[in-house]
Every structure is written in structure tokens, then in C-alpha cells.
């Protein structure tokens, strides 16, 4: 499949992105290109302008300081994130999540900013133009009036499947967004997501992600991301769970748990966290927290994966990720 025709623009610095996005309506940003270019080949997106941002070295930095925490430029590749020493040591869940995205080639290209901004996907929408044309009706995402995932649904039910967002939620990350006027805004990564499949994040056409910051976890914190996919590589998760636990004297001081691939966004499981916080960590307690996760998630059937299977899988993944996070919490 050929790419559709577009006008090619290059941003030299961060200010350039804003001015180019403002001047040229119907423009998209291409960084790694591993998500947007296939979509353009399938004619899901047919932009008039493409803004290449890969020349901006400022956004490719990984900075870490004990006090300042971790700052990841949005153009840091997933490969670099997964192999960076401070990330592996202090932000294990993020290293694991970015190391499990797709394949080594895609991790070498794809960026962390791109991964958190991935749209929801569905087997009826993410197809070639010719394939989609075979259906007489359009789905919600294409401006139509129905959802093919679930007949009779009043909204889009495509699945959000990115790996790094649950890890970032568990680690308490913040995202710096630059809006159309060039103003920067720092928000909790949880608030970055709308939980609506039709448009999973709050980015407007002239916004872009500049940086991701994570505070240094306190002593006795461990984190873990676990992903179950049908294939070891080049696959989105059937489900993924991330946990970040702070333990002191056998007691859980703080816990953050989030899961992915269960709906229109990464979901934080506060009810499971509450069970852990303030209590002595035992196998039974972890089991209870996993049960709470099982109660909370309401996934849709997806390909050959039933709701029943996915909920049970979430229970297992949450349980194991809490256990592994506790083991690392030293």
C-alpha cells in the first residue's frame, strides 16, 4: 500500500511544531511513524500536511535526578526507555512495559510520546480502505452511526491497548502538553485519558506531548508490569497490569494499580489499591486485591477472547504484578 500524498514539513524546534500545527490545518505529527504511517497507508488518516519532528534533539533526552525525578522527552524511543539505567532500576514497570511493545525494530523507532498517545483499535476500523468500503455503513470512529464491535451499542467500543500507560499511571507520571498557543500544561497521566474509545486522549489537533515526568519513588518501592499477549512479539496485550507498591516494615504504605486492554483507556483500580494500603502484605491480602480488580473491570469480548477469560486474566495479572512489585520493594 502506498502512502497518500501529503505536503512534507520539518520542525526544527519545539516552537516550530506549534507554529506549523497552527498554520497548517489537517496536519499530523510523525515521530516514530510506526502507528501513524500504517494508518495513513490504510487511509484511516489522510492528512494534508505531515510534520516530521525527529530532528528535535531537545525532546530526545532522558534526565534523572534523585530530587527532580525522571524526565523523558516525548521523542525518546521505547528501546532507549527500556534500556535506560535509572528507568530499569527505579521505574521497573516502565522499563518492562516499553520493552514488551511490539518488536525490536518498532521499539527502535517508536517513541514514548507516541505510545501514550495511541488511539483505540478495532478489527473493523483498523483495516484498509478497500476492506472498510465493503461494509455499507460507517462506524462511530469514521463519523457513522454504529459500532461493529457490539451490535446496538450507542458509542464506539474499540479497545485501547497501549502498554506503557498503565505502568506510567502506577508510577504516578505527569505529562507536559503544549497547546495551540504554545502554553505548557502539566497534568496527571490519568487525566490525559478520556476513557472514551472514540477519542481516547484529550489532545486537540494543535496540541502535542512534550515531556513525561515521574517522581522518584520513595524507599521501599517496587513496581512491575505484566503483559499477556497471544504472541511474544508484534502483538498488543490481551490484557496488561501494572502495580507500584511501597512497603515499610511489612506494611503497605502506598499502592497504585492500573490495567490496560479492558476498555476505552488505561484504568486505575483504586478499589484494589485501597485493600492494600495500610495493611500487612500477605498472600491473602494480595488475593483480595486481585478479587477487587476482577470485580471492577468490565471488558468487551475481543477477537476470540471472551469477557470471562479476560476478567480472570486480569485477576491473575494483578495478583502477580503486586507480588513481583512487593518482591522488588527493598
Amino acid at each position, binding site marked *: 500500500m*502506498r502512502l497518500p500524498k501529503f505536503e512534507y514539513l520539518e520542525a526544527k524546534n519545539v516552537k516550530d511544531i506549534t507554529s506549523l500545527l497552527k498554520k497548517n490545518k489537517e496536519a499530523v505529527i510523525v515521530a516514530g511513524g*510506526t502507528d501513524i*504511517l500504517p494508518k495513513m497507508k490504510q487511509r484511516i488518516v489522510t492528512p494534508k500536511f505531515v510534520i*516530521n519532528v525527529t530532528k528535535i534533539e531537545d525532546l530526545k533526552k532522558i534526565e534523572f535526578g534523585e530530587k527532580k525525578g525522571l524526565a523523558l522527552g516525548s521523542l525518546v524511543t521505547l528501546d532507549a526507555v527500556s534500556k535506560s539505567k535509572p528507568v530499569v532500576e527505579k521505574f521497573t514497570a516502565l522499563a518492562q512495559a516499553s520493552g514488551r511493545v511490539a*518488536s525490536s525494530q518498532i521499539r527502535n*523507532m517508536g517513541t514514548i510520546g507516541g505510545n501514550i498517545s495511541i488511539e483505540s483499535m478495532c478489527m473493523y476500523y483498523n483495516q484498509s480502505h478497500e476492506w472498510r468500503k465493503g461494509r455499507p455503513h460507517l462506524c462511530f470512529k469514521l463519523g457513522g452511526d454504529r459500532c461493529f464491535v457490539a451490535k446496538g451499542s450507542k458509542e464506539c467500543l474499540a479497545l485501547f491497548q497501549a502498554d506503557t500507560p498503565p505502568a506510567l499511571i502506577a508510577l504516578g507520571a505527569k505529562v507536559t502538553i503544549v497547546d495551540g498557543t504554545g502554553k505548557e500544561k502539566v497534568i496527571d497521566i490519568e487525566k490525559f485519558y478520556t476513557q472514551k474509545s472514540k477519542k481516547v486522549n484529550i489532545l486537540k489537533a494543535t496540541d502535542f506531548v512534550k515531556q513525561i515526568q515521574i517522581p522518584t519513588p520513595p524507599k521501599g518501592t517496587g513496581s512491575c508490569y505484566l503483559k499477556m499477549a497471544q504472541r511474544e512479539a508484534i502483538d498488543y496485550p490481551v490484557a496488561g497490569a501494572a502495580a507500584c507498591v511501597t512497603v515499610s516494615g511489612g506494611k503497605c504504605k502506598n499502592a497504585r494499580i492500573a490495567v490496560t486492554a479492558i476498555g476505552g483507556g488505561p484504568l486505575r483500580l483504586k478499589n484494589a489499591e485501597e485493600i492494600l494500603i495500610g495493611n500487612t502484605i500477605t498472600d491473602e491480602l494480595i488475593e483480595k486485591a486481585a478479587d477487587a480488580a476482577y470485580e471492577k473491570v468490565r471488558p468487551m469480548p475481543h477477537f476470540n477472547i471472551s469477557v470471562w477469560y479476560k476478567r480472570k486474566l486480569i485477576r491473575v495479572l494483578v495478583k502477580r504484578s503486586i507480588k513481583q512489585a512487593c518482591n522488588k520493594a527493598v
Partner: protein
Amino acid sequence: MKQLIELKVNEESYETAVDPHRTLLEALRENLGMTGSKEGCDLGACGACTVIIDGKAVLACLTLAMDAQGKDITTIEGVAKERKLSPLQQNFVDYGAIQCGYCTPGMIMSAKALLDENPKPTEAEIKRGISGNLCRCTGYTKIIEAIAVRAK
């Protein structure tokens, strides 16, 4: 409108005119006539188009030709030196790691990138290193053996 770009492929400079919506794979195959890198799925799922840019294995089908300017590109054509197969390629031949051959250029490039970074990979690391390349003849065992020999 076509634009003139300069690509540095296998340590040689090539000047060519491409439309901005052309991928590096199309530029390599159609403009420069280097048909070694293959087009498989063209969506980033098969790894047949793998080339090495600045030391990292990447997918040429998802790289814009315009974006590849000024970077060091190595394709399968640049692996053999002076009409002699590289030791890695020779191992692929010796161990029967080639069946239909369509995935082979991509496999070699992924394996080369892996071995350049980690000269002694374990079997698990080899599997992970080539996990982005599909072989629909399913001849993975032989491919892994051929790469493992280099690690010895």
C-alpha cells in the same frame, strides 16, 4: 512535488528525487534499484524490510525517505564485502536457515544489529532479537542455530 534528497546507503552517497510520501523502502527498491530489502506486509508487522539505520534495526516501510537523509543506512546489499558473503550470511547458507528466502534479508539485518550490539547473545536473546521478523516457512530453528554459531 518531487524533491532531491541524498541517501547514504552502504557507505555510498546516492542523490535521488522522491515524492515526500515515499517510504525509504520504496526509495531503496524503486529509485536506487536495491531490491534486497523486501516488501512484506508494508504495515510494520513482518520485518521483511528491516534495514539498519545508525546502528539500529528499523523498518524501511515505516520510515519516510525524506527522514532518512543524512543517516547511515545499511541494507542487505552492504553486508557482503568484495563479493564474498559475510560470516553470518555463510552460516545461514550452511545451516539451511533459508527456505523460500523472502524473510532472509530482514532476518540477516536483525541478526546483524543484534550481534553488533551484543556479540554473545543467549538463545533467548536471539529469539527476542529476531522476534520482529516473520518466517512463514516457519524455519525458525535453523535461523536461530545459524545465529547462535556466531555467538560461540
